[in-house]
């Protein structure tokens, strides 16, 4: 699980061009949207594509995404349970 969390942090930094950040700057329970990392709706779309491309998970219900993308912890838990690759 720890390896997956580290991988997620690295992917998020790369995919979302968070140039000034390193994985160490993101705590596992940091809020990704809103007051935390400050990600926005375009980032959410990028994350949905990342889940599909890297882990074979297709999100169809946007409401579902809100809970999944809350933090690195919630993303890692969801991916562990649902990944197909």
């Amino acid at each position: 699980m720890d390896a997956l969390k580290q991988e997620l942090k690295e992917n998020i930094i790369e995919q979302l061009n968070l140039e000034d950040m390193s994985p160490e700057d993101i705590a596992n329970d940091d809020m990704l949207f809103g007051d935390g990392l400050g990600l926005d709706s375009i980032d959410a779309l990028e994350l949905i594509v990342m889940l599909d491309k890297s882990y074979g998970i297709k999100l169809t219900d946007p409401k579902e995404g809100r809970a999944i993308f809350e933090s690195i912890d919630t993303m890692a838990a969801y991916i562990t349970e649902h990944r197909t690759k």
Partner: protein
Amino acid sequence: MKQVYINSIGSISGQKTFDNNEFLNDIVDYEDNVISVIDPIYKDYIPPAAARRMAKGIKMGVVASKIALQDAGLENVDAIITGTGMGCVRDSEKFVSAIIDNDEQYLTPTSFIQSTHNTVGGQIALELQCKGYNFTYVHGSNSFESALLDAKLQLENNEEHNILVGGVDELGDHTVTIHKLINHIKPHAVKSSELLKSNSVGAVFAEGANFFVLSNEKQASSYAEVTAVKLFNTLTKAEITKAATDFLAENNLEVSDIDILILGNNGDIEHDGYYHELQSGPFKNTQQVYYKHLCGEFNTASSFGFWLASKIIKTQSLPESVKLNNIKQASFKTILLYNQYRGENHSFTLLKQC
């Protein structure tokens, strides 16, 4: 009809032109066939949250615009008019490559959103919160002059008072590869200072952004007056001299009234002949200047020529590095610019001291 003045400039190029206090004091002499700009510190101008989605061309355009606004002492403008030949080509390449590489699956939104030609103008407007007229001209090497002409007409008719006008283009890896394949980029590295002696086809490709605040209200700090702009899609070499002298006549000028002729020679032996017609013809006794050895070739490279002309007129100085010949001039009051790329999209621009 109102007069049109260049009230400020902002330039990002292969030289350290982003500092308006300098004027080609230290020339960077490259030895390459593709040259990138000297980057300012973009973070000093763009908040990191906004910058992270901006490709190079957008950052260059936004920062050159902000430098121009600072130079004009303005917080905002009435309109933004941008010229670009290739637009945000890096994001276009990224998006199209993703389509191919991922078999039309997993397409991410950011590069698609940012790939359109008018992204630069849009991002500048967002940064400035400018809700006025916003237009982008895409017309090869006449892109900047098309934007310039639009601004000039609006200011002359007093429809706007201050307009931000600029030219911007960025290098993209795939585009560079393709242009090398078709010999539009020189097949070998060339020293900048020896560009016109390269004796080969193609140009040294580059990127850059040059923005200006044009106004119909003159300031003590104004650089020059834009007297006339004329565009031609096609002209033969045999027609160049007449086109140039006709343009001067339309503006009640003769060749002897021109203090400096600024030319867009890029060292391409197949197409520099257009410039040679003027150099060895009616303007052989005129001070001639070139600049693409400093900034390279790109669709809006002529906006660097426009920057150069503005600086020469305001500072009344002519850097040695841009001289094509040595004709003594007491002052630099009237400058004619001529540009074309690969024999198409010709432009004549006339600036005078104000």
